[in-house]
């Protein structure tokens, strides 16, 4: 087996670590320290290694003591800092396991504990480990953390994450040797006596020992107390933790007496307390001289213990030295906090398989294949992938959106709105439930009609909006904002279960059971008429009415709702027939398919807010100019009491207005802050939406502006994150068809 280190090739042996092979080849140096660039060499034989950091391929900051040799391995020494390499990350995975007893540490006491345990037993060992009858032995596996006393995360060979739930955890984690403090204790060739033994007493190496410190990390992470053990000169586990037990050297038992501790003679700037961080005794003395008394402060001031080794060989020496410098007993200083992960862990291991396409589910509508086939450009809306626009040859987004908007305003256009959240609400108390959860009242809503509704959080801020359709005596279907469907259902369930358990009402998500197409524009009737026998004229099918029938031979529910101000029909069909419906609509006449971008422009021209764009959790329906959606007659609804606070009726609250840039071609940046004059710094609000309007032949924006509704005609300035303030006039929020004359179709000429 051959491997390469720092450009030179060496022979390696099966089962050997990189550190062991280097030492065997007489390489006692080969590394540099991070701050001072001092020559360093392999110092230890395990995970506590402060010096021998390497990069292997794309993976930085690996400890040579944990890197297992394989043929062709190429390792580069690192001076304490990794380097990111763009390369495909290795595939990692995670495993879940449950057991009666989990033993951490495969030394003599760990193996004895595992052998004596009953039931399912798992043994973790960071090095190599022989099998054990009836025990799942995971070797080359390091426990990263012990949480809530029964949940252990561990990483196997740097690639597989184990999540283990154990009834009982036995910590047989042993002890780490610490270096003695003397000038030059970092010189290449100086190594811990335990490493010297592990590497077979290599020629030229100098074994040193400052005593042993128990690996109390997991114990402490889980909430276990520590006490200072005078004999070994280190903290040991103290007291009890239900379900967690320490055995062997981690308790201090069997460890040799610590050598007497004294501050060394000589140049303290050559005495290294933390090798990985390059912190010396002189640094520590300076920190104490600066008046720092607590370990946590000394750590932050000197950076002792903050390296990627988390001070495994440094922290106890730091306690002992600081105690000497401060003239106190080390036990009085306590320890710094032990936090997981115990060893560094790659993000790819944490991510496991949940990356790329598996990171988050992608939801598509039944019509999706048609959108793909017709060249739609998509955008992600929550988990949904929605067509943003459909460019025709050579069009950019701006040109496509202007064309799609014009088609909806002047002729007919169709949009796939299947992603709307849909919640089926039924039961004898469904009406009462809706009256409590929405701000407006539903008592007068008849079967076969629908009504726009708004819900607020209890603090009176807008949570969501949508349409409530009454489809039966005791049955309603509520639509929600696409990205908010799950949250709204959770919200409704919470109130139903926790505050109103007396209501007989049931909530069901039916978002994916329905496919919905919006047919929009003055010629919408002409497009639909050949496909259905449902009478479409305004007299027999008024605004906000619902009709059942067939469209293109598919049983359908047709609703006259509009998110554009134009005459529009929403056609709801069984989700499984959505594509069939869409293909029929797309080929029936010359309807223009349009995407979310045109939808945004059309609704903004009518000042229909989008939750999460015009609202941000501090916006009330009043702020949006929607007083009419707040019932004055209902005794209560969620948010009512908050809307009665003086603060929600302040005249200087930020209110929704439109902005017309003075230069009709200037497009404001969404998020720009509004100021009264170009050199003003006090923000009076911000731009929430900004578009080019085909109908107006110019740009426009929506904005929340302090006291905006009393400032029509005033010119303010929109300041983008970078760039010059842009002047714009405040106007009424609705910039197109203020009279609502287009709702029933093309107005008579």
């Amino acid at each position: 087996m051959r491997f390469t280190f720092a450009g030179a090739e060496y022979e390696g042996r099966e089962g050997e670590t990189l550190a062991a092979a280097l030492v065997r080849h007489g390489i006692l140096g080969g590394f540099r320290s991070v701050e001072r660039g001092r020559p360093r060499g392999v110092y230890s034989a395990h995970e506590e290694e402060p010096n021998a950091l390497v990069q292997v391929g794309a993976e930085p900051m690996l400890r040579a003591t944990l890197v297992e040799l394989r043929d062709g391995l190429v390792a580069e020494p690192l001076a304490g800092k990794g380097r990111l390499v763009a390369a495909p990350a290795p595939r990692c995975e995670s495993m879940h396991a449950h057991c009666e007893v989990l033993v951490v540490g495969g030394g003599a006491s760990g193996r004895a504990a595992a052998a004596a345990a009953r039931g399912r037993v798992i043994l973790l060992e960071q090095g190599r480990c022989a099998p054990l009858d009836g025990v799942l032995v995971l070797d080359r596996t390091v426990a990263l953390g012990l949480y809530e006393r029964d949940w252990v995360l561990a990483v196997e060979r740097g690639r597989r994450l184990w999540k283990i739930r154990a009834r009982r955890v036995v910590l047989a984690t042993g002890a780490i040797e610490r270096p003695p403090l003397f000038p030059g204790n970092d010189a290449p060739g100086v190594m811990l006596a335990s490493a010297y033994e592990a590497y077979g007493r290599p020629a030229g190496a100098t074994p040193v020992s400052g005593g042993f410190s128990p690996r109390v990390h997991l114990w402490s992470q889980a909430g276990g107390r520590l006490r200072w053990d005078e004999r070994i000169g280190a903290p040991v586990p103290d007291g009890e933790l239900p379900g967690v037990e320490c055995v062997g050297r981690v308790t201090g038992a069997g460890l040799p007496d610590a050598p007497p501790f004294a501050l060394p003679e000589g140049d303290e700037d050559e005495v290294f307390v933390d090798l990985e961080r390059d912190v010396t005794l002189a640094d520590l003395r300076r920190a104490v001289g600066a008046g720092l008394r607590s370990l946590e402060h000394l750590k932050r001031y000197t950076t002792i213990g903050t390296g990627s080794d988390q001070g495994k060989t440094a922290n106890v020496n730091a306690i002992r030295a600081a105690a000497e410098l401060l003239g106190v007993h080390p036990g009085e200083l306590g320890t710094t906090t032990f936090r997981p992960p115990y060893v560094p862990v790659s993000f790819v291991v944490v991510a496991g398989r949940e990356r790329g396409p598996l990171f988050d589910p992608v939801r598509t509508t039944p019509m999706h294949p048609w959108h793909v086939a017709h060249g739609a450009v998509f955008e992600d809306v929550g988990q949904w992938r929605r067509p943003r626009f459909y460019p025709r040859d050579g069009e950019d987004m701006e040109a496509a959106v202007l064309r799609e908007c014009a088609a909806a305003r002047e002729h007919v256009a169709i949009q796939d709105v299947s992603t709307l959240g849909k919640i089926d609400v039924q039961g004898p108390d469904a009406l009462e439930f809706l009256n409590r959860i929405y701000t407006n009242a539903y008592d007068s809503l008849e079967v076969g009609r629908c009504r726009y509704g708004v819900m607020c959080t209890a603090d009176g801020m807008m949570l969501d909006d949508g349409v409530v359709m009454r489809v039966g005596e005791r049955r309603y279907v509520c639509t929600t904002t696409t990205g908010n469907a799950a949250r709204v259902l959770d919200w409704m369930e919470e109130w139903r279960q926790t505050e109103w358990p007396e209501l007989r009402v049931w909530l069901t998500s039916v978002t994916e059971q329905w496919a919905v197409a919006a047919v929009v524009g003055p010629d919408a009737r002409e497009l639909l008429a050949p496909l259905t026998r449902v009478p479409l004229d305004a007299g027999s099918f008024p605004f906000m009415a619902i009709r059942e029938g067939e469209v293109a031979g598919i049983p359908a529910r047709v609703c006259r709702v509009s998110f554009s101000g134009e005459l529009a029909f929403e056609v709801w069909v069984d989700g499984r027939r959505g594509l069939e419906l869409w293909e029929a609509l797309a080929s029936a006449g010359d309807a223009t398919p349009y995407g979310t971008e045109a939808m945004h422009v059309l609704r903004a021209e009518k000042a229909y807010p989008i939750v999460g764009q015009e609202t941000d959790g501090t916006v009330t329906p009043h702020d949006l100019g929607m007083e009419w959606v707040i019932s004055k007659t209902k005794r209560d609804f969620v948010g009512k009491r908050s809307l009665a606070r003086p603060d929600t009726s302040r005249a200087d609250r930020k209110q929704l207005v439109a902005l017309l840039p003075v230069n009709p071609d200037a497009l404001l940046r969404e998020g720009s802050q509004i100021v009264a004059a170009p050199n003003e710094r006090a923000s009076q609000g911000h731009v929430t939406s900004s578009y080019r309007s085909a109908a107006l032949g110019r740009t426009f924006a929506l904005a929340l502006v302090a006291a905006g509704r009393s400032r029509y005609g005033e010119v303010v300035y929109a300041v983008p994150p970078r760039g010059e303030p842009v002047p714009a006039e405040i106007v009424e929020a609705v910039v197109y068809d203020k009279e609502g004359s287009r709702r029933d179709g093309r107005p008579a000429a």
Partner: protein
Amino acid sequence: MLRIPCPWCGDRDEVEFAYGGEADLAYPGDPAALTDEEWAAYLFFRDNPKGLLRERWVHAHGCRRWFELERDTVTHAIHVRGR
């Protein structure tokens, strides 16, 4: 990760649940009768004890039922109240 005893489904990992904050804060019978201060106290003010706390949880990725339990905020020991 906590192991939370759902009264309907049994012991499950914390990732299956969503937290609902302090329990036993009933919605006021007549919100309109409250002063702004009283209403704000209901909406926003919560105990933050070191020790036992009654709290609400929902088995969001399971049975979707809300329930209450008592948790020691120091040790994370959990005691379930009846459903």
